Structures are given as C-alpha cells and as structure tokens.
C-alpha cells in the first residue's frame, strides 16, 4: 500500500471513539470460555439422550468431517482447474504483482469448500500453510510467496501469490481444533517459462480405516514416492523417525507435521539421483513401519512409484533380513549422546567396491527408547561374507574427523559367524 493510503487509514482509525478504545482494552469477556460452554451443552445432551440411547440401537451415523479443500488454478487462457488429489496438475497463468515487483508470479486460490460449494467451517478447524519450513498466516509475505484471506460471494478461502525460478513447494494443512490433521496437501509449483501446479501429496483423514489399513494405503504402490511425506501426515502416528542419508542422519521431531516438513525438505534438498534413503520409523503403539530402498541412483518416477512398502510387526522386523536366503551376521555400534549428531558410518575391507558393499552389507539406524536418559543412537550392520574378512567400521563426524573405529575379523563357520574385535578406538 502507498504511504498516503497508510497515513489516511492511520489517522482515520486513530479517531475511533475513546469509549470503544477503553472497552477493547479490557481483557474480560462476557461469554465463558468455549470449553465451559461446550461441556455444559454436552452434559445436558447426555442427560437428555441417556435414556433414549438405552432403548435405541446405536446406529448413529459417523461424525461429519469438514469437506476437503481444493486448489483452484487459473490458466493463461482463463480456464479454471480445481485440483484435489495427488497427481492432479494444471497450468497457472503468469502475471505481475506489486508484492513481487519485476517477477513473473502465479496466483493460487485455496478454496475452503468442497466441490458442491459447501464452506469449510472454520469454527472447529485451523488452516496452516508452511513454506520453506516457516509457518505462514494470511497477511504474511516472505521472499517468494504471499498469503491473504479472500472472501467474497464467489470465493471463500486463501490466496497465494508467488514466484519461483524452477520449483517450489507449499504445504497446506487443515487441523481439527485439537490439532489432529484432517487434510493435508503439498503443492509443487514448477516454472519453465510457464507455471504449473501439481498436487504433490494429498492426505485426508478417514475415520473408518484401521491404523494398519491407513498406513498400507499411504504406501499404496500406486502412490508416488512422495507417499513418504504422507506417513508423517498421518494423525495416527506419533513417532520418532530417522532419515538415513549416506551422509548421516537427522532426527525428525515427534510431531507428525514437523516430521513431514523436515522429510520434505530433505527430499527437496537432496538430489534424489545421487543418494540412497532409508526411512526407519517405529512406534511402540502401532508396530513398526519399515521402508527401504526408497531411492536408488537413476530411478525414474515410475520406478520409484513401484517400490513396495509394507507395515511390519516388531516380530517381523526383528526377524527381517535384507539378504533372504543368506546366512547373515549382525553387529551394533552404539554412540552415546544426542541424536542430532550427524555422524556417518562407513564399512571398508580389502578389495571392496561400492557394489560389493551394497550387495553384502546393509546398515540400519537404531535408536534407543524415547527415554532421554538412556538415549543413544547408532547402527546395526547386517552382512554376509563367504571367506574370513577383516572389516573396518569407521564413524566420522560432520567435519570428517574419525570419532570411532572398530576393526572386526569375521569368519564364516558351519553354524554362523565368528566375530573377533581386533581393534577399537576409542
């Protein structure tokens, strides 16, 4: 806005009646807090219906959940597209905006209605938008996007105006009043002279699914690899997840939304053609979820989409082997201290090539319980060999300094393996 308008509005609002200024300064409110009103109403309802329920069969309909929200994109020729599901894509018009002078921008409208035009009831929901890890609210602008609230006869929701040079991601979440994620979408904006929006991931809370069904659905082989981020969107799962990247690992936070965010950021920041990701996630309540080999070098999108993930129980996990049909050995290296230390483990032995290492050894991150006092992190190496081999396991920190080294001599025997520790520092 220009300075003249700003001055006019500042002066105009400065003249608001003193009685109103005084009244608004007090913090007391006439109505009792919402939870008190809700509790009172609920108690009355229970009393009223209590005897009726004793006589009536319990075939009440499932609770109504807020309708999904859709993304509306307008192309250069004026045609509008409404996007909802993962994989939906549409062009967006290039335009100009005072918000980003000199930039070619796009406009996306997030309509808080369903396709029938029913408005999302914001009384019991909250809207969140994250960009580059930062939570943004309507009225906020960062270097690349600006969000505003938009309400008129035709539209009810939020408008995002933004720009990017190649691609950008915006995470949009609608939560219930107690914080549960009801809907989440990540949109990917791509620019190559034209803008295109792509619903990268889409998640909707489905109350009738069991936990296992939901997680299995999230890992449906028909989904794109971005399904990884959908795990973190699940309202069922509270977990401590580790993303193992060959350069180290990062602990994700326990809350599903932050984990999703970090995971997405990792996925975006890392060139997926060059790195291998292993995602290990576990929760004492919901069993274990194991996703392996999410990315290999040079996998195409179609190939990644075909990688299978499945839910495993703890028992399955404990008996899991990456080398079916092979007699394997396991060795654990534990590092005391904070999970956030970004250490890297490497395995070396005479004549080893990258392919040999991948074919013979699997490294899994391990984590102690959530009890901080006994916290540790480390690795479990699972491998198989055919002849006695001296293995050097080296842990280096982020700066490349060796902080731990173990030299093992592993000998295959008739019944298994013999592992001798030749040297251990410190």
């Amino acid at each position, binding site marked *: 806005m220009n300075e003249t308008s700003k001055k006019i*509005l500042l002066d105009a609002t400065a003249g*608001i009646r003193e009685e109103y200024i*005084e009244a608004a300064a007090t913090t007391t409110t006439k109505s009792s807090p919402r939870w008190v009103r809700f509790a009172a109403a609920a108690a009355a309802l229970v009393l009223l219906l209590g005897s009726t329920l004793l006589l009536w069969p319990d075939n009440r309909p499932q609770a109504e959940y807020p309708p999904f929200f859709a993304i509306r994109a307008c192309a250069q020729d004026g045609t509008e597209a409404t996007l909802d599901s993962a994989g939906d894509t549409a062009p967006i018009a290039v335009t100009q905006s005072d918000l980003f002078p000199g930039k070619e921008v796009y406009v996306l409208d997030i309509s808080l209605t369903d396709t029938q035009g029913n408005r999302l009831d914001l009384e019991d929901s909250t809207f969140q938008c994250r960009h580059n890890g930062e939570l943004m609210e309507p*009225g906020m602008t960062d270097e690349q996007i600006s969000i505003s609230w938009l309400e008129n006869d035709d539209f009810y929701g939020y408008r995002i105006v933004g720009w990017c040079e190649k691609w950008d991601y915006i995470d949009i979440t609608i939560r219930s009043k107690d914080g549960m994620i009801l809907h989440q979408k990540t949109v990917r904006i791509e620019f190559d002279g034209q803008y295109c929006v792509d619903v990268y991931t889409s998640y909707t809370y489905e109350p009738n699914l069991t936990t296992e069904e939901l997680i299995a659905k999230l890992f449906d082989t028909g989904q794109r690899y971005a399904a990884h981020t959908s795990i973190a969107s699940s309202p069922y799962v509270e977990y401590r997840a580790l993303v193992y990247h060959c350069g180290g690992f990062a602990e994700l936070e326990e809350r599903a939304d932050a984990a999703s965010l970090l995971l997405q950021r990792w996925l975006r920041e890392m060139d997926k053609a060059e790195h291998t990701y292993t995602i290990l996630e576990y929760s004492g309540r919901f069993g274990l979820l194991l996703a392996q080999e999410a990315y290999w070098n040079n996998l195409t999108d179609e190939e990644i989409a075909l990688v299978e993930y499945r839910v495993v129980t703890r028992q399955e996990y404990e008996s899991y082997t990456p080398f079916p049909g092979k007699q394997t050995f396991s060795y654990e290296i534990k590092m005391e201290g904070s999970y956030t230390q970004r250490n890297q483990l490497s395995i070396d032995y005479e004549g080893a090539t990258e392919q040999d290492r991948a074919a013979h050894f699997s490294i899994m991150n391990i984590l102690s319980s959530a009890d901080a006092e006994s916290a540790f992190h480390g690795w479990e190496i699972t491998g198989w060999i055919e002849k006695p081999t001296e293995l050097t396991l080296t842990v280096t920190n982020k700066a490349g300094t060796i902080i731990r080294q173990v030299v093992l001599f592993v000998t295959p025997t008739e019944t298994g393996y013999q592992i001798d520790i030749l040297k251990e520092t410190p």
Partner: protein
Amino acid sequence: MDDQQIIELFWQRSEAAVAAVKQKYGSRALRFACNLLNNQQDAEECVSDALLALWQQIPPERPRHLWAYFSRIVRNISCCRLDYLHAARRDRGCEVCLAELEDCFISQQTPETVLESGRITLVINQFLDGLDDTGRRIFVRRYYYFDSCADIGKLVGLSRGTVNTRLSRLRQELRKQLEKEEIFV
C-alpha cells in the same frame, strides 16, 4: 489509583503522576507499541516519549478517558517512529492490518477524489455503533491496537480462525457503509 486521581496529580505537577501512569498502563502501552514496531527497544523509547508528551499536555488537557488519550499518543509516536525506521517490512505489525482495511475502499481514480480521514473516522464510528460488543472489540483490537488474530481470540474467547472470519465479514460490512457514504480512494 483511578484515572481522575492521576489526572489531578498531573495538574498539581507532581511527578508521581508519570509513575502512576507507568504503573497502571505501562505494560499495556509497551505491548501496543510492540505491535506496531515489532522491536522491544524502539517500543520502550516510544512509550517513554509518550509519557513525556502526556506530562507536557496535561494540563491544559483534562482527558475523560486516560488510557484512550495516552494510547493515542503512544500510537502516534510509534507510527512516526515506524515511518522513520521504515524498510521493506511487509509481514508484521500495522502494515498487514492497514492493508486489510484498505480493501474496504473502492478505488475510484478520478481527479475529484479527495481523501478525508475525518469522514472515514465518522463512518467507522457509526459502523462500530451498530456492532455488538464482541464485534466492536475485535475490530478495535485489530485496527487500532494492531493485535494478531490469535491474541484477539484469547481476549474474546474465540479461535483464531473464527476471529479471522469475523474480521473478514466486518470489513465487508464496513465496505458497504463506505460505499453508501460514497467514500472512495
């Protein structure tokens, strides 16, 4: 100490008057200035300047509502400071609130367009007269005090989303009144 007693101290040129205002309204004023300036040190300086201005203006002034009077001084000084410090701050403070309010005005680019803040104030006050207590409180907290929706929600016992929605509807109603009074930008 009630407001009239404090005002009396000003009239007696007792320095206890400033101390009394600081004790009663100091933290509220600081919060208000912070809403505008988004900087604790600048806000503290503005509040100090406002207290000095209060000392210089009373007497001869004898305000009916001390907080409203003092808050206007804080607001004006903070806005001047904001102009002085102004950079490309786009996502905080009063800029966002004023931009919301600007949407209430219909643009009419004619040479005859005259901007009169006095007329706008009149319409805003008439508009506020017609609101219920909660609506009025929400509007004033947002466009006079520049509070965030979350903070307003806590004050009035509503969720942030509801406050946001309510503000949007209030702006629509204000827009209709401004159109009716033929006030354009």
